[in-house]
């Protein structure tokens, strides 16, 4: 089993190379459909610079043939240089390192909460099928799913921050920011809640957590519906299986049947979805990040895309592609763990 697993992981890791080449080639090709003037507009930050656009095109080689530009980029990447991001005003690699912690911290709380709440609600809805509880949960899930995250975020912010003065935007309050930047606080991970624990600073921890309440709530409300519905369907499918009838016929308690047998088997599709959800959160939550002023990787990617910052978009594609491949790998391994019938071959 251990050898199988190792071989499987190696194979999947090798698969990452064609995935990333394919994705970057595709993005690069699409970006080349925009002519050099459009790509050069990224470097025009002021109307006074417009007259230099031709020189800027020459300087950055934007009118060179596609393959030359792509191979130059590949050459840079192989040297560990992902290029310069004009939209982020820094090296792409530094930008990824700079923006990722904010997203990671948000996902660290939002993803597990979404998954746990989704599983619990889906399970309850399935067990209470066609009862008032089921209808209520399903209705709430649909409403949550239908709410635009932008609107929900603004409403929550207006209610709690605007109305009550709690749960402000950003990642820290002004005083905590000053402390974190002052040198009295050591930054280890860029995740303020984790760093606060490592610094044994309860005040910063509470402050960072209070700033996470609303964005995490928004993400849970928006995302929980899908997980809940998948879990419910999966549970209902399992409840109709013969092994459940047999277990009940043998006199097993309903709680044991549900918790020990049905739930475990029903989790397979939920795991797939959870993996994708987590990877998707880790690759950025543009709207939530924008509304709550959490400048994460989603903000970086969205800005790069809207400003036609090709280097940054390619860097992000490498990052997101790797993330999704790893997420799928973890999901596959979890499959095998939860259902021993599945072989990693």
């Amino acid at each position, binding site marked *: 089993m251990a050898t199988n697993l190792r071989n*499987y992981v190696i194979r999947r890791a090798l698969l990452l190379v064609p995935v990333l*080449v394919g994705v970057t*080639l*595709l993005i*690069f*090709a*699409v970006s*080349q*459909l925009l*002519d*050099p*003037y*459009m790509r050069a*507009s990224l470097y*025009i*930050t*002021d*109307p*006074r*610079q*417009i007259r230099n656009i031709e*020189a*800027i095109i020459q*300087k*950055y080689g934007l*009118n060179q*043939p*596609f393959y030359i530009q792509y191979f130059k980029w590949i050459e840079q990447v192989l040297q560990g240089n992902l290029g310069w991001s004009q939209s*982020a*005003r*820094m090296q792409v690699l530094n*930008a990824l390192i*700079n*923006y990722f912690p904010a997203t990671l911290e948000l996902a660290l709380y939002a993803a597990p909460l979404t998954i746990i709440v989704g599983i619990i609600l889906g399970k309850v809805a399935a067990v209470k099928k066609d009862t008032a509880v089921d209808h209520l949960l399903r209705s709430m899930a649909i409403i949550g799913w239908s709410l635009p995250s932008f609107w929900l975020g*603004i409403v929550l912010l*207006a209610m709690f*921050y*605007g109305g009550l003065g709690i749960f*402000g*935007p*950003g990642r820290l*309050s*002004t005083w905590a*920011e*000053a402390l974190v*930047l002052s040198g009295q606080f050591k930054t280890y991970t860029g995740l303020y809640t984790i760093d606060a624990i490592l610094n044994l600073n309860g005040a910063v921890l509470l402050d960072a957590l209070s700033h996470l309440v609303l964005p995490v709530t928004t993400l849970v409300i928006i995302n929980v519906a899908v997980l809940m519905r998948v879990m419910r369907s999966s549970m209902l499918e399992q409840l109709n299986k013969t092994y459940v009838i047999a277990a009940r016929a043998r006199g097993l308690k309903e709680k044991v049947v549900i918790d020990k047998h049905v739930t475990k088997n029903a989790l397979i599709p939920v795991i797939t979805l959870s993996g994708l959800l987590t990877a998707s959160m880790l690759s950025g939550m543009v709207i939530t990040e*924008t*509304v709550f002023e959490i400048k994460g990787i989603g*903000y*970086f990617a969205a800005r790069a895309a809207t400003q*036609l910052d090709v280097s940054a978009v390619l860097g992000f594609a490498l990052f997101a592609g790797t993330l999704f491949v790893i997420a*799928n790998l973890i999901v*596959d391994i979890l*499959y*095998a763990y939860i*259902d021993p*019938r*599945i*072989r990693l*071959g």
Partner: protein
Amino acid sequence: MVRKSVSAISKTVAAVIAVIIVVAIVAAIAAYMVTIPPSAPPTTPTTPTRTGVYIKNPEVDELIEKGIMTIDPAEREKIYYTLQKIYYEDVPSVVLVQPLGRHWERTWVQGWYYNPAFPGTYFYALSKSSDAKNPDTMIVATIGEPETLDPAWAYDTASGEIIFNMYDTLIFYDREHVDKFIPVIAEVVPSVENGLVRDNGLTIIFPIREGIKTHYGGEITPEDVEYSFERLMVMDRDGGPSWMLLEPLLGVESTRDEEGNIVVTAEQIDRAVEVEGRNVIFHLAKPYPLTVFFQILSQTWSSIIDKECAITHGAWPGTWENWTEYNNPAEPELQEADCGSGPFMLEAWEHGKQVSLVRFDNYFRGPAQLKRAVVKSVDEWSTRKLMFLRGDADIVYVPRQYIEELEGIEGIRCVKNLPTIQNDAIFFTMKIDPTSPYIGSGKLDGEGIPPDFFSDIDVRLGFAYAIDYDRLVNEVFLGEAKHVPGPGVEGLPFFNPDQPVYTLDLNKAKEHFQRAWGGQVWEKGFKIVILYNVGNEERKAVSEMLKENLESLNPKFKVEVRAVEWPIYLKAMVRGQLPVFIIGWLADYPDMHNFAFPYMHSRGTFAEWQGYVTPAQE
């Protein structure tokens, strides 16, 4: 029993990847087909390629060049008054409005004052009353973020706002005045009277103050001053601010020609700024108005840099052997460095989020009252507004359409009608690219316009009289703009407030169109496409106003207003494809020259695209 195998999943994934690669290759081939090959000739219209159509402005270039080389203010006034008259009579473009600024702050903010040449908030002048939230920290919530903290690279206001709080200049604007200066790193402001301006203004001497500490730990020396200006000229990046010093010091606008070859020598740069004891001496290549030169020296590109700090960060080492390697770099060398001596030091630049500054306690003019200053980039208005109302932002950028949401709220102050050094104008392209997709048939047959349509002054006047300027000011700018004559703006020295302006007058518009092109325009009509970039409400309003008014004059006049993305607009504008284009200009320094040149000189930013050239230059 169902036997699931992950190998099957792998095969599926592999198949998907194969499809992606195939699609990518196809797209790549398609892309290559549309990519401009490197051997293609340059497509930007340049003066020599524009032939056949001229506008009668033979004296314009000469006057503009004379204006910037004239020292005597009275003489300059005459020149700029003449240029404004020509601008009105020749109508190469029409200034639509001079927008007015607004400043929103919490009432606990103290000491704020306005200078239109400032790129943002000058924190050294500010403090907060004790009842304020975070009384030691000033927080500005705005949009966008700096491009760089390198003074020799920065040309955008967001960068300038940070830089002018971190660095000092030789001299600086005296509070609100744009033409009075105070010494900062220089001990005195040079003048003819104090003997520091010599040789008819060609030699300007700045005695350097002693004991100015830098954030890097050093002290500002005359060599640092010399290095700062020489580095600005050595760097001269495309689209950067170096031309402002190159023009008076070397007599050129760029260190490179159009092919990118270096056209100045190390000796020229070295000789332009020299050190003698504690003095730094500027040798000007040509007579230059002292006030304009001082305005240039008071801006962020003239910041004084700690040389040792800059070199440590990989900037030009100050030697001449390989100086061209540091010319036009791809990236700013001092992107996040702090080599300044200003009242605030860089604490952190958290990209996309904020730049925070901390007080420099060793500042030679005494430490600032604020301990910290933070410029936050908060793109979402609702969030920015809530931060302002909760006191988590002290100064905030409020887009015009949201003004009503804040008016009358206690604890908030708004200073209105601030004069700016910018204007918006509509430009007529005299020689449109014949391949332009925006001129219909390309002929005067009622289904398009000929490329030289606007070379007839009656067409330009017809357009000028068909714009409802008052409606633009009141409905689009909500009263926050002035209708001023061009090409300058009110408040600048040598601006002629008595110069007439065009107003909406459809009868006059009709008269001019009836005369245009020997009556053919009126008889045959025309069809034209006016573009505006998506999201720009001002340009949209002007375009639609023109459509409405022109089509009301004659049923044969057809105007199509089309929204496009900014890069498309930019490309079409630069290539001379837009029959008319609407764009704003923010002056580099508050002088008429900085408007006259781009608007009227044949090498000016806009005039060049329009083909507003003189026969002599052709």
